[in-house]
């Protein structure tokens, strides 16, 4: 079984480190020195798993042989150039997206005829350096068919991921899960990025909890208009997550803290655009979208 993991941030590194225990894994990085470090030193996972994985790595798609499975684990904003660089390659691979938000599958579909799986992941970690990732939240990755794939294909990838020590679940239709996460992310990430608060009790009570609840309600109205029956109530996901005992720092909060571009377009942007398409008013998500975009502008 040959697996290519494209994108070696936190999520990509967690997939690569674990899957290397049960498959031949090649990591496709953006930076050559990152690939070199992985080739020389392997990939270390700490936290909930303690592993050292021997992985092959390259920053050049042309140097990577064909694979059975390609996992695209880059950030949403990097997906378009990554997918373009894969065009014409990996003729026998099934390609799986795990980006936040909506629309990753369409981006990839435009660059090749690969069978596509769509996935959302709830696992999280902290990337300490190019060869060390800490596995923090051992929550599942959800996988569903998207194009020329079946629920059985989704299940076989889920089984592979489970055998590697991560949590994964297959669905006949991923959209109910994907939308649940989208609404959850659009709400929690933006509120965290704007307030500086990690995802803690403030999100489930008092005035800020009220805002989070209202944001979730707007998202639910969009899902309903789009004909998607949510798999989980994003408000309950939120409350549950705040009670895990330790506060998670959402990626958008870390991004604004480090003055990096955020995934606002892919997350809240895709929700706001879906709301427009379906004629649903989302004044609060629109406000938070504008505020986060403005916060990005304040870096310079």
């Amino acid at each position, binding site marked *: 079984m040959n697996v290519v993991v494209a994108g070696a941030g936190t999520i990509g590194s967690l997939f690569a480190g674990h899957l290397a225990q049960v498959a031949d894994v090649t990591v496709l990085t953006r930076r050559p020195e990152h690939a070199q470090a992985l080739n020389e030193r392997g990939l270390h996972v700490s936290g909930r798993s303690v592993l050292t994985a021997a992985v092959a790595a390259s920053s050049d798609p042309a140097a990577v042989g064909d694979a059975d499975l390609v996992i695209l684990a880059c950030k949403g904003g990097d997906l378009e150039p990554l997918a373009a660089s894969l065009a014409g390659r990996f003729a026998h691979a099934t390609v799986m997206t795990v980006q936040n938000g909506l629309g990753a599958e369409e981006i990839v579909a435009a660059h090749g005829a690969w069978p596509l799986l769509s996935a959302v992941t709830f696992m999280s970690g902290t990337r300490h350096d190019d060869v060390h990732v800490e596995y923090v939240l051992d929550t599942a990755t959800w996988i569903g068919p998207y194009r020329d794939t079946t629920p059985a294909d989704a299940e076989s990838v889920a089984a592979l991921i489970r055998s590697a020590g991560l949590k994964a679940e297959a669905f006949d239709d991923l959209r109910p899960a994907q939308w649940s996460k989208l609404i959850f992310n659009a709400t929690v990430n933006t509120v965290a990025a704007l307030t500086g608060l990690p995802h803690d009790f403030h999100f489930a009570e008092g005035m*800020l909890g009220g805002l989070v609840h209202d944001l979730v309600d707007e998202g639910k109205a969009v899902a309903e208009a789009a004909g998607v029956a949510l798999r989980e109530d994003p408000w309950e996901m939120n409350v549950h997550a705040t009670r895990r005992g330790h*506060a998670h720092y959402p990626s958008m909060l870390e991004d604004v803290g480090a003055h990096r571009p955020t995934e606002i377009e892919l997350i809240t942007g895709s929700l706001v655009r879906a709301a427009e398409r379906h004629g649903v008013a989302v*004044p609060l998500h629109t406000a938070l979208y504008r505020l986060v975009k403005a916060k990005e502008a304040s870096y310079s």
Partner: protein
Amino acid sequence: MKVAIIGCGAVGSLFAVHLAQLDDVEVWAYDASQAHVDAINAHGLRLTGAGDVAGRLHATSDAAELPACDFGIVATKAMHTTAAISATAHAFANGCVATVQNGLGNEEAIAGFVEKVIRGTTFPAGKILEPGLVQWDVKGDTTLGPFEPQPAPFDEIERLADACTRGGMPTAAVADARGPQWRKVIFNASTNSIGALTGLTHGRVCERPDLRQLVSGLVDEGKAVAAAQGIELDADPEDLIDHAAKPEVAYGHKASMLQDVEARRTTEVDYLNGGIVRFGREHGVPTPLNQAIWALVKGVEDSWTK
């Protein structure tokens, strides 16, 4: 006449120094900062910037030292109103107390301790440079009027306005001071909070069309709450916002709330967006955007102590 400035920060100092120019006014300043009080008593209080003015006055951090006064002018940050007026109310047993503070709810807080209350709004601004020395950034007008439930007599309001004007702070006594107050509150609530959340200066907030639209959404809610109370704004807050965005006015100005956030000081959001939400609730006007912005800024404050 005797006037006590309650809270001698930047705005309080502007009133204190200008009133101290008058022979017929004895000025007292009550302030929590002992260093500021000591400097004022030793060397007087000085303004620099928009004008260079110095004055001698009595300063104290001990409310018991305040004599019986004809007027009080409360100029603390809004969250300190109750503490400041409850400590000093004895000085105004027969006097009238005006607020020149930001936000909504200050008059109500003062009226809990003082009989005769003056609603006020002031546009000048500045900052303390060091004890006894204040940077005067912006000149502007002040409006005073009766606080309707517990009004000061109008001739008293005129007497205070006249003294301020003669001292160099142009001040008008009007029958209904709510218009200028709400114009300023709506301006501050709709722009300061956006600056605080995004880190952008006033001009940069206004030049992003989508963000400027959000500002207008906040303004519209504030206008609706004002209208529901029968308040006629003295001018459109939108005009003030666009005027301030000009390069020669306040394009590069960091709103006080942004300065507070950067220094991790409690902001006045409870009295700005929070005030609009509270008055909106009382009058059945929905204010979802102000509510959201209020919650976010409180979240920012909470993030410092988590």
